[in-house]
């Protein structure tokens, strides 16, 4: 493997034990992939906080936990400094309204302790799976790492930035030594579409795009790069994030061209790198209906838990909820959560959106989501989401029927306490 002099210094420990451990991991990772060199990582979103998966590691020593779980080092290393621009991804609670979620004081303190470590090392506590909503903007050809699968898809596809799905440990190591294997999506020529999906179905709403993503994820083989083509109506960021989040949930793609919209796919031919695709599949109304039936329980059952904002809502999405709820009152049996980024909630506060939602009986929360905090109500009779991703991830961990629909379907259900969608 070809290492630069700087990289050799990182590896031989001249830059300290932490960077050495991180570099050892990255070099091993590169070898496993068969990569011949590394590239420079300048932006990272990291999975910070007292996440439940850490509980398997029995220790009270937070540095030991971080050493093992983030850097695969059984020897204790101290996380003192990141090598690039780093933001935190979701943690298991809202930094202010944690008690509302049923988080205990002890859990809160533990989470804070973790977050403070990362903050001290230079990680901004943005707490979001939609980092692009608060200025996480890599340029075309810029190398990033992220702990969130939909972020990989969005930044690769929409902006031509370069990132792989990697994993939590690889993200931390890359952020600390500033390197990742030059492999996969980090090489522009590897990013060509292999499977073309001809849209013949509806594609007008955010919900339609969620189902589109869900469907493409289902149909896509391993190691494939989808291309969205055919008759679709122009999406905006809200539709794209619903689509990509669902797609990354049901499949594994890390790049998804949309012909005429994403910069490496101005034409179908460009998207596929001038080669014939391995497969061309239609996406029909029936496909979308099948996905809907798969992800959402039918009927008009009782609802007592509704969560919106997966991926985290933008200020515009929050306003639509606030405007809908303004002057109304949701059913007393319903817990309505709306999730966003801490900084975006501040703008919602200033604009009065937070208050409109509160007055109607809902709550605007930040820095987490039901899938991440896992504190979903026991014995709920029905749960509803406007995200196909969230509905699909929650279903296996609850015995309640799970419904998926538009934000409006969910809000109407919040008023009536019954599922009002399809």
């Amino acid at each position, binding site marked *: 493997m070809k290492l630069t002099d700087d990289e050799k210094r990182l590896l031989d420990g001249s830059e300290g034990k932490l960077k050495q451990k991180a570099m050892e991991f990255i070099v091993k990772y590169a070898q496993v992939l068969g990569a011949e060199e590394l590239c420079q990582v300048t932006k990272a979103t990291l999975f910070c906080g007292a996440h439940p998966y850490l509980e398997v590691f029995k220790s009270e020593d937070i540095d030991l936990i971080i050493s093992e779980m983030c850097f695969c080092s059984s020897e204790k290393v101290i996380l003192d400094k990141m090598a690039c621009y780093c933001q935190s991804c979701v943690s298991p609670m809202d930094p202010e309204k944690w008690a509302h979620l049923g988080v205990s004081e002890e859990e809160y303190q533990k989470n804070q302790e973790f977050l403070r470590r990362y903050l001290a090392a230079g990680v901004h506590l943005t707490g979001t799976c939609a980092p692009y909503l608060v200025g996480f903007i890599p340029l075309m050809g810029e190398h990033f790492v992220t702990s969130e699968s939909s972020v990989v898809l969005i930044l690769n596809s929409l902006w031509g930035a370069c990132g792989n799905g990697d*994993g939590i*440990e690889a993200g931390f190591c890359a952020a600390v030594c500033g390197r990742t294997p030059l492999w996969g999506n980090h090489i522009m020529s590897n990013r060509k579409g292999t499977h073309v999906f001809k849209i013949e179905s509806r594609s007008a709403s955010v919900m339609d795009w969620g189902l589109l993503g869900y469907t493409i994820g289902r149909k896509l083989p391993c190691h494939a790069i989808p291309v969205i083509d055919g008759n679709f109506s122009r999406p905006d960021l809200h539709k794209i994030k619903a689509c990509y989040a669902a797609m990354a*949930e049901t499949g594994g793609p890390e790049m998804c061209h949309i012909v005429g919209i994403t910069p490496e796919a101005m034409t179908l031919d460009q998207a596929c790198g001038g080669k014939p695709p391995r497969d061309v599949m239609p996406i029909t109304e029936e496909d979308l209906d099948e996905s809907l039936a798969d992800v959402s329980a039918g009927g008009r059952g009782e609802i007592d838990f509704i969560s919106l904002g997966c991926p985290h809502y933008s200020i515009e999405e929050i306003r639509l909820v606030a405007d809908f709820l303004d002057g109304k009152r949701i059913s007393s049996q319903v817990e309505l959560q709306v999730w966003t980024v801490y900084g975006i909630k501040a703008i919602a506060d200033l604009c009065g959106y937070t208050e409109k939602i509160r007055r109607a009986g809902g709550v605007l929360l930040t820095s987490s989501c039901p899938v991440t905090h896992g504190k979903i109500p026991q014995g709920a009779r029905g749960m509803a989401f406007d995200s196909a991703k969230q509905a699909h991830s929650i279903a296996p961990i609850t015995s309640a029927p799970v419904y998926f629909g538009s934000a409006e379907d969910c809000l109407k259900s919040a008023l009536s306490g019954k599922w009002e969608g399809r």
Partner: protein
Amino acid sequence: MTRIILQGRGAIKGIAEGRALVCPETIMGWNGIDAKTGLIIEKGHPLEGACIKGAVLILPGSKGSNGWSMHFHAVKIAQVAPAAMVFTKLDSKAAVASVVLDIPVVTDLEEDPFAFIKTGNWVKVDGNEGIVEITER
């Protein structure tokens, strides 16, 4: 008793053997494996309920969240890790999980492992030589 040998690329060095768990559709990380017991909990997965501890996982790659490796990491800490893994082709999530688990891994086989390996076969994975040896019995 037949013995089949498949040649591939050794991704993680070392030699280990165990009973094959063959997953042509791979496994999800999140809600796929119970970190404490090593049981496959993915709803509707053909091997739902099987335990990965000491097994040789035969997978095409990864799927789902970027947390794929972290679930295998948890499994390792809980000492219910598989003995070895065989991938048709590595993707980045599968590669990170391989480094994290640090068990013998072979990939890029000359032939399709799903055509030769059935769940329950005894499989020896030699990450040094990139060899997968299958004993049907």
